[in-house]
């Protein structure tokens, strides 16, 4: 199954929606942050996944970046949580970046991409 194509399409869709929210304040759920730069990044990762039909290197790179995006979102979530429990106006909510990062991790294990990497 070409899961990487589906994953790529999800990344692209999420990226476009986040850009639209950022640019035109589209009424989208809080899951989307309206981060234009972030939206473009998701778009880039999505394209890399889809380019995976050329060779494995694109999928491995997209997956590594996707996991990176997830980790950064998790760090931001933790940081906001600290701010929240100390009484500041932060809402530590799960967002699309974290979800997509998690999907990339799942895909990493499912396809056992790690086996393709000798070291």
């Amino acid at each position, binding site marked *: 199954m070409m899961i990487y194509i589906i994953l790529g399409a999800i990344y692209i869709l999420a990226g476009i929606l986040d850009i639209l929210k*950022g*640019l*035109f*304040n589209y009424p989208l759920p809080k899951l989307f942050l309206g*981060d234009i*730069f*972030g939206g*473009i*990044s*998701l778009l*880039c*990762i999505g*394209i*890399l996944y889809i*380019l995976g039909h050329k*060779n*494995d*290197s*694109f999928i*491995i*790179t997209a997956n*590594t*970046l996707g996991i*990176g*995006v997830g980790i*950064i979102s998790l*760090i*931001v979530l933790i*940081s*906001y949580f*600290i*701010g929240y429990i*100390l009484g*500041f106006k*932060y809402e530590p909510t799960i967002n699309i970046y974290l979800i997509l990062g998690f999907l990339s991790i799942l895909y990493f294990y499912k396809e056992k991409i790690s086996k*393709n*990497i*000798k*070291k």
Partner: protein
Amino acid sequence: MYEIALIGNPNVGKSSLFNLLTGENVYIGNWPGVTVEKKEGYFDNNYKIIDLPGVYSLSTGAIDEKVTMEYFLKNKPDLVVNIVDATTLDRNLYLTLQLLEMGNNLLMALNKIDLCKLDYKKIKELENILNIKIVPISVKKKVGIEDLKKMIKELCKNKNYVILKYPKLEKYIEEIIDILKEDQNLKEYNLRLLAIKLLENDDYIINIVKDTDIWNKLEKKLNKINEELKKEYNGKNPFEVERLKLIKKIKEIVYDNNEIYVEKDLTYHIDEVLFNGYYGILVVVPLLWMLFTFTFTASKPFMDIIETLINIFSNFIKEIVTNKFLASLLADGIIGGVGAVLVFIPLLLFLYIGISFYEGTGLLARIPILADMYLRKFGLPGKAIIPLILGFGCNVPAILAARTIENEKDRILTIIINPLCSCSARLPIYVLFASAFFSKNQGLVILSLYTLGISLALILSKIFRIVLFKEEPEELTYELPNYHIPSFREIFVNTWERIKHFLRKAGTIILFGSILVWFLTVFGPSGFLGEDVFKNPELIKMSFSAKIGEFLSVIFSPFGWGWKETTALFYGLMAKELVVSSLGILYGVSGDKLLNILTKYFTPVSAYAYMVFTLIYVPCLATLGVIKQELGLKWTIFVMLYLIVLAYFVSLTIFIIGNLIFC
């Protein structure tokens, strides 16, 4: 006490080895006269290790290279430890040969031995060719470090100075040394190194000997030798030819089939995409976003925590100090000023962790290569990409990030255009005015300001490159290390040392500036106005800052801005966020009322011109502080002046054209 110089190419694991050898025992300063970090550390108390900047060769082009050259010209360390990347041995050997040419007690630390197929026999062969000791190590896996320490101790006690001599060139070196010896003033220098660099026609070295009594004699001799060498080596640098010849020979003996390392690992896969034409940009954009988000978004709650603590402390001081003048000086001036520096610490901490991580993983060496082809068209080096992107968050860390640019002119150019990257502190101003005047197209109006900022930065960098620097950005020389996860210790040690450095230096000017602004606000021609001045528009009107605003409003009269709008711009010097709050105080309103009142004082065109002015004019005090720290007073004044002139010119042009079109 033995002095040991640690030297190697960039990205070979030198800093990690330095940390492993010295542990916590590290002192960080600057090399004399330049802002290049100088690290010194100790192990076993008797061994002082000096971490020299990472260089590809002993030349004098970039600032890092000059520092390294100066060190070897004037110092004779007991031992030179040359750390070499075993996976790219051939490229690293160029520096090794140069170190041997000048005559050093040299030890080679052959790093990343775990990643390549060099066996014991091959290493022995290499030892025999170079006539030096080699210790295979893996800094990442901490293998061979104890052996290296043992060898360092042994070679410090039983020195083995090796001089690499090229038969065809040796007699010329000796002839030059004989002349150099005649001048007593040159005694402090390594004459052999001087001679080699003179024969290589190094301008920096020629300038050292030009003012000596022997120069005429030396010049004649050099001309004669150069003529002979020109014929012999077809006009090529004779030393370069000899070095490359020797490296080729070593490669044939040590390598199997001219290859040392071929394996499809993560590095192979990512680099295949990264350097695959235009696909590389698809990798760079998410990488930059990650650094940006980690630096600015993740650090924000911690900045708020520090700001709150400072406010609590400030209020506490106001409560316990009964003298109102003293209370205001301490709370609003000094604590406010120190607070302005302290608030940046989380931001810098996250930035440096991010940069150290990218540096350690090997990404930092790659991103500039991809940006180089685009930025070079505007006269900027590829390495300017990181400061440019970070500038959209905050100019302070962005300017500090320019330290990764070795070439001094490239670094100056990158720093002086950085304030044109609109930092996040300017966003509240844009949002306020865009909501008041362009509510239907807020996003596009704000986007236009960001585009204007980066466009001006690129156009000006091209102009400055042609007018001020008059030479192309330095060619990007690079060594691509394998990707790996750096150790936490490496990241945090580097981060903490850089933060300390920032606090020590930038704190002084920001503190001074804060006290100055405080003074101009709480004092007026009638004397001390009281601490309520920050809340009361009638009191502010009597302050020196308002008087300055009134005076400056004459200059801004073509725009129709009065003293209140001009005074708000003046407060923006302290921090850009203050423009909005100052307007609120000066108009005596807040929230939605501020939006409404703005429409009485501005037209849509003058409001847009005001936004453009705040985008371009002088950056905040903290940014000026780090520019002063990095480039000195002369460049700081230059940045202030050119930005004010540019801001005025661009805003006025927009104001005039806007009025012609819309009014």
